[in-house]
Each structure stands twice: as structure tokens, then as C-alpha cells.
């Protein structure tokens, strides 16, 4: 089965080509139907690969063909199946299928409905191809392609100026990270002579990663950090997280698929994929852990005060991605991926449920909603499941995965990170239930909008229900119930235990975590459900902190000030140089070249004997030089 893994990415590509052929006027049913069926087939393939690997852990394999040869080096293309890759394939294809189905309802009557599905198909193809890439170069190509798809989809409603701006911002900020990744990949290639993971890891772990100007140990750290910079850009880690909230300008299914479940997880995946490199350099791993921790806390703090429902969830995503990175960073490889797995479901669920709400009431402002629970039962209950899972309440999925990460921070001796994680967990529970209560409970704050609110059709509710089920049970894949199947599965990639550690369950800690979550939920209930505590008063009393959080720690403004203004200054200088000096030179050269061409043209007199004379004149000159050079005539 494993040798057919290439089908998983190719099926959405077929879908893309097919939709391209259908054109922009194709019927919605046909477009959505084909897309859903193909991604579902892709899901089945992924699942088959996943289970095949589970049954026989040693059937992992790399299938490549030579693409090009550069002297002694060669570059291959193909695909590689490892346990990690198989897990990612399942996650991506599963979420994609559901989102494709949901979009049928959400995007109904959009003018560019087929185009939307084209982009989505292209994205799913790129994402899956990224996952199965056997080497860093191929990964990088698809890394850029998912970035491109993200750009296209954020700016899908390009006529909204915010959407166009957000698309640009996301592209530029992630590009910053990509530059780091690119330099890292080039350094790895130069020092190990190959783009292949296995060769790079071999060189890194045995200390053979060598360049003349840097010691192997430093080079390992440097490349590790550069790769992480790329991952941080894609996965919205501090300080490159600023693009993700703005990306919420895209259609909500896009937010669910790309900016919650899959593409933003690509950074986490990349760190996991390159784990041997990070392990070889302890420093790089520590950087990952701390950036992850800071991001987790920062995201959670900002999410406390946002008014836009999608932005809250977006900051929540940033925060959760921080958890994953932190998990990887403290050495808990399997737990980081486990959280990626559960998060994909409950966060996609939260986004889709939010999408369902937005679809119904046509606003994203929390303070214009309220009391929707009565009109949208399914949405309310599924959102509640997602929120409970995110908060980490026993026995929802998020509880198992988040708790194992917190446990890992404690047991690996990172006390500060442990406290950061607990505080962030408290905030998480608070902000998500703030959203829940503001949206679904209390009295409607804007009657006119609430009046027409109703549940969407089955294509929208069915994915919600499936995801809600997953948000409930996905955690059980890695519990005592199945003997911690997921972590055993993932650790099979490296039987020597080189990639990370696992820890036994810590029941007292679990109780603490659940308590923290429940306290957060309780506080949210007291403030927004049964207003015992006035939110406004609290905000006024803590106005400094409130404003800091509400204004996202002023990071956007700082960036604008520093980055954009320096950028403008440099651009101004370059522009001057370019316009008045380079341009002049280029123009002169162009003119000269053209005149030279005209001059040469008129040597073609049409007289064959002139041609011969020129030819023999050339022969004579070159011959004379040659003979003189050899030194001696006969």
C-alpha cells in the first residue's frame, strides 16, 4: 500500500486540473461534488497507508527518481512515507474533506465558487506533497506553493481592501521566515552535499556537518535555528505571528483548513521532520521551546480581549501552535504531534462553527451576537465540544494532548515553561468560553441580525457533527485505552529513541490542569453568562493590561514603525540609485548593444564573396595568433 502513497497528493491535483478544465462557469454541485469525492478518496488512501504502517512498522520507504545532476551531487524527486508523514496525510485529507463539504454551503452563490474550489484543491495537493517530500528542496518548493495558495485564498475577496492588504501582509511576513529556511537549506546542502533528510541527519548527528568558516556544532545550531525561523513564519510563532489574525479576512472555511488545521501546522511538522537536527543541537531545541512558550502565552493573553470572533480563535491558534512547538522543544516529539493531531480537529471545528454563526448573522463582532443557542442548536453544541476540547476538560481530546505537553515541560525540568503553560491554559479556557457565552447565551444584542439566524443546510452541519465527535474522541488515540498507540506509532520512525521522549501519566497534574481549566470557564461564566462580575469594571480597573492585550501588545505598531519605516528608507535610497544611476547605465548599454547589432547587420551585404573574405580574414588572424602562440612555423 505504501508505494501508492503518491495517490494521496495526486488526487487533489487531478481535481484541480479537472476544475481548471471545467472553467469558471461550472455548476456548484459538480464542482463541490468532484472535489469532495476526490479528497475523500485521498483520505481513504491516506488511511490505508496509515494503517499499513501501523501493521508493519518497517514498510516505511522512499521512492524517488533522479531529477538532475550537478557534478557529484544529484537531486531526486519522489515521495517518502514515514509514520510522521502518514499521520499528517490523514489529518490533512480528513480535515480537507470536511471543509470541502462545508464550503459547499458556506460559499453558496459566490460568484467565483469554482475558483475557490480550484485554489482549495491546489492547496490540498501542495500541502500533501509537502508532507511526503523526500528532500528539503522539494519540501521548499511546496512550502512556497502552500504559501502562494494561502495568499490567493486570504485575498479571495480581493475587492475588500482589508482582504487584499491581509493577503499581502501574510505573504510578506511568511516570506521573511522562508528566507531563513532557504538559507538554512542551502547551508545544509553545502555542508552535507545533499538535500535528502537521511543524509543531512546522518551528517548532523555524527558531527560531520562541516563548512570552513564555522564549527560543526555551531553550524548544526545555526541551521536548526534558520529552519525554525521558516517554521515560525509558517506557524505564526512570536515574533512572526502578526499575519495570522489578519489572515482571517479570508473566507472562514479557508481559516479552518489552512489557518488552523493544516498549513500553519506545517511549521510544527517541519520541526518534527527535522527533529534529529534539532536534537543534535540542544540550543536550537531550547530556542524552539522558549519561542513556543512565549507564543502560547502571548496568543492566549491577546485572545482575552478581542471582539472579533474569528480573531479570538486565530489568536487561540497561535497560542496552541506555541504549545506544540513548546512540546517539541522540551523533547516531547510525540506529544507535540499528538497535539497537532487533536488540535486540527477541534480548531477546524471551532472555525467552522464560527463560520456557521457568521453565515447566519452576517457579523463577526461578538458584542453584536448573543442568544444564538436557541436558533442554532447544532452549532451551539458542536462549538461547546470544541471549546471544551480546547480548554482541556476531561475527557475531551484537547485535555489528553495538552496535558501531555504540560506534563513533559514539568518532567523535563522546565519549571518556567510549566508555569507559562498553566497560565496560558487558564486564559485559554477563559477566552473561549467568553466567546461561547457571548455568542450563544444571554439576550440578542442586535435583534435585527438575530431575527433571520438559522442553521445551515446538512452540508454545513454534518462536518460540524463529525468534527465534534473527533474533538471528543481524538484524544483517546493516545491513552492507556489503546496502550498509547499514537506515540508508539510515531516513535517507530526512530527505534533507537533518538527522537524525543515520552513520560508516564501524572494524575495529580491532570487534576490540577482540569481545575485550572474549570476555574477559567467558571470565571468566564460569571462575567458573561450570569454577570456577577462586570467585565467593564474589570477592564477599567486593569485598564493598562486591558489595553495592552486589546491592542495586541502594540506589536503591529512596533513592526510598522521599525520594519516598515526602515524598509521605506532603504527602498528610497535604492530607488534613487536605481532610477538615476543604474537606469541610465542600462539604457546606455541597451542603446549601444542595439547600435552594435545594427552595425553587424549591415555586414550581411548579400555578397557571398564578402562573406568568404570575412571568413578567411578571421581564419588568417586566428591562425596567425595560434602560430605565434605555439612559437614556430614549420
Amino acid at each position, binding site marked *: 500500500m505504501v508505494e501508492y502513497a503518491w495517490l494521496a497528493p495526486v488526487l487533489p491535483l487531478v481535481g484541480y486540473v479537472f476544475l481548471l478544465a471545467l472553467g469558471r462557469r461550472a455548476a456548484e454541485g459538480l464542482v463541490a461534488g468532484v472535489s469532495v469525492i476526490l479528497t475523500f478518496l485521498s483520505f481513504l488512501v491516506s488511511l490505508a497507508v496509515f494503517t499499513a504502517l501501523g501493521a508493519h512498522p518497517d514498510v516505511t520507504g522512499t521512492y524517488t527518481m533522479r531529477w538532475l545532476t550537478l557534478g557529484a551531487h544529484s537531486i531526486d524527486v519522489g515521495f517518502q512515507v514515514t509514520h510522521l508523514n502518514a499521520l499528517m496525510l490523514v489529518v490533512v485529507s480528513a480535515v480537507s474533506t470536511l471543509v470541502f463539504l462545508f464550503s459547499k454551503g458556506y460559499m453558496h452563490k459566490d460568484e467565483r465558487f469554482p475558483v475557490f474550489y480550484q485554489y482549495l484543491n491546489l492547496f490540498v495537493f501542495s500541502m500533501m506533497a509537502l508532507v511526503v517530500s523526500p528532500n528539503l528542496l522539494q519540501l521548499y518548493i511546496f512550502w512556497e506553493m502552500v504559501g502562494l495558495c494561502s495568499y490567493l485564498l486570504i485575498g479571495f475577496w480581493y475587492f475588500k481592501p482589508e482582504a487584499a492588504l491581509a493577503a499581502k501582509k501574510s505573504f510578506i511576513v511568511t516570506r521573511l521566515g522562508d528566507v531563513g529556511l532557504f538559507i538554512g537549506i542551502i547551508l545544509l546542502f553545502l555542508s552535507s552535499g545533499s538535500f535528502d533528510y537521511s543524509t543531512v541527519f546522518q551528517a548532523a548527528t555524527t558531527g560531520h556537518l562541516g563548512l570552513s568558516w564555522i564549527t560543526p556544532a555551531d553550524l548544526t545550531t545555526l541551521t536548526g535555528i534558520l529552519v525554525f525561523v521558516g517554521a515560525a513564519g509558517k506557524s505564526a510563532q512570536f515574533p512572526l505571528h502578526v499575519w495570522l489574525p489578519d489572515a482571517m479576512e479570508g473566507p472562514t472555511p479557508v481559516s479552518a483548513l489552512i489557518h488552523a488545521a493544516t498549513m500553519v501546522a506545517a511549521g510544527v511538522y517541519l520541526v518534527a521532520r527535522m527533529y534529529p537536527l534539532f536534537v543534535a543541537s540542544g540550543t536550537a531545541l531550547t530556542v524552539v521551546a522558549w519561542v513556543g512558550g512565549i507564543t502560547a502565552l502571548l496568543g492566549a493573553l491577546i485572545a482575552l480581549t478581542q471582539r472579533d470572533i474569528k480573531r479570538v480563535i486565530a489568536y487561540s491558534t497561535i497560542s496552541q501552535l506555541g504549545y506544540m512547538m513548546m512540546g517539541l522543544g522540551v523533547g516531547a516529539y510525540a506529544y507535540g504531534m499528538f497535539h497537532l493531531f487533536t488540535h486540527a480537529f477541534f480548531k477546524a471545528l471551532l472555525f467552522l462553527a464560527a463560520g456557521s454563526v457568521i453565515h447566519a448573522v452576517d457579523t463577526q463582532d461578538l458584542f453584536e451576537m448573543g442568544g444564538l443557542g436557541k436558533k442554532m442548536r447544532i452549532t451551539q453544541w458542536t462549538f461547546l465540544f470544541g471549546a471544551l476540547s480546547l480548554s482541556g476538560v476531561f475527557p475531551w481530546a484537547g485535555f489528553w494532548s495538552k496535558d501531555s505537553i504540560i506534563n513533559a515541560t514539568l518532567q523535563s525540568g522546565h519549571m518556567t515553561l510549566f508555569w507559562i503553560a498553566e497560565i496560558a491554559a487558564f486564559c485559554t479556557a477563559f477566552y473561549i468560553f467568553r466567546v461561547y457565552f457571548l455568542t450563544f447565551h444571554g439576550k440578542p444584542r442586535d435583534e435585527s441580525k438575530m431575527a433571520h439566524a438559522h442553521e445551515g443546510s446538512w452540508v454545513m452541519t454534518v462536518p460540524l457533527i463529525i468534527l465534534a465527535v473527533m474533538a471528543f474522541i481524538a484524544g483517546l488515540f493516545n491513552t492507556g485505552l489503546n496502550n498509547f498507540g499514537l506515540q508508539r506509532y510515531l516513535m517507530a520512525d526512530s527505534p533507537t529513541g533518538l527522537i524525543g521522549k515520552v513520560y508516564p501519566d501524572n494524575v495529580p497534574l491532570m487534576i490540577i490542569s482540569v481545575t485550572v481549566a474549570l476555574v477559567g470557564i467558571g470565571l468566564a461564566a460569571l462575567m458573561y453568562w450570569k454577570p456577577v462580575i462586570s467585565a467593564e469594571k474589570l477592564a477599567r480597573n486593569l485598564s493598562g493590561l486591558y489595553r495592552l492585550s486589546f491592542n495586541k501588545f502594540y506589536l503591529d505598531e512596533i513592526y510598522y514603525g521599525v520594519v516598515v519605516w526602515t524598509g521605506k528608507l532603504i527602498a528610497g535610497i535604492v530607488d534613487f540609485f536605481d532610477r538615476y544611476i543604474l537606469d541610465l547605465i542600462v539604457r546606455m548599454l541597451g542603446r549601444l548593444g542595439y547600435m552594435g547589432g545594427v552595425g553587424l547587420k549591415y555586414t550581411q551585404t*548579400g*555578397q*557571398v564573396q564578402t562573406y568568404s573574405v570575412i571568413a*578567411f580574414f578571421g581564419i588568417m588572424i586566428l591562425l596567425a595568433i595560434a602560430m605565434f602562440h605555439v612559437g614556430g612555423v614549420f
Partner: protein
Amino acid sequence: MTGLGGPLFPIPTGSLLALGALLFCIGLFGALTRKNLIIVLVSIELMLNAANINLVTFSRLGVNPSLSGQVFSLFTITVAAAEIAVGLALLLAIFRLRRSSEVQDLNVHKW
């Protein structure tokens, strides 16, 4: 490369090579300057024959005398004949079209 004269004809190799070179230059001069296409063709023939003289000389008086030089020149003569035949045919064709066999009148293509 001097005085590798054979037993029967004590002619130095150099003279024969000089003859070849002279013939080549005469042919070249003719090919570059004569106005009539037929003369140009004949001049090119001379250049090819210069090479033939070289080949035959070397096959008898070269560093390692061997027969292949003479065989080569036989081939060359045949090929040159074919070349000239085609040349004359083309000459006829252009003469029919332009009523002229002057090289200068080949001036439709230029620039």
C-alpha cells in the same frame, strides 16, 4: 620536415607542400575575387586539389608513409566531382531565373 625524398624522385617534401599551399592560395584568390560563378567553382576545385596534393605527398613522403592518403584523395576527387555537379546544376537554375552567372547578382538576400 626537410629532405624526406624518396629513392626514385629526389624531390624534397617541402617543395610539394609549397606547391599545395600555392595551389590553395591561387584557388582561394580566385574564389574570393572572380566575378563569374563558373570560375569560382573551378577555383574551389583548385583548393580541394591542393589538399589532394598534400595527401598524396604525405602518403609517399610523410612521417609514416601509408596507402590511406592515396585512397583518401580518390575519395576526395569523387566527392569534389559530385559537389561540382551540384554546383553547375544550381548555376543553371539561377541562370534560367536571372539570365546572369555573375556572383554579384546573387543579392536577393541581405541584411
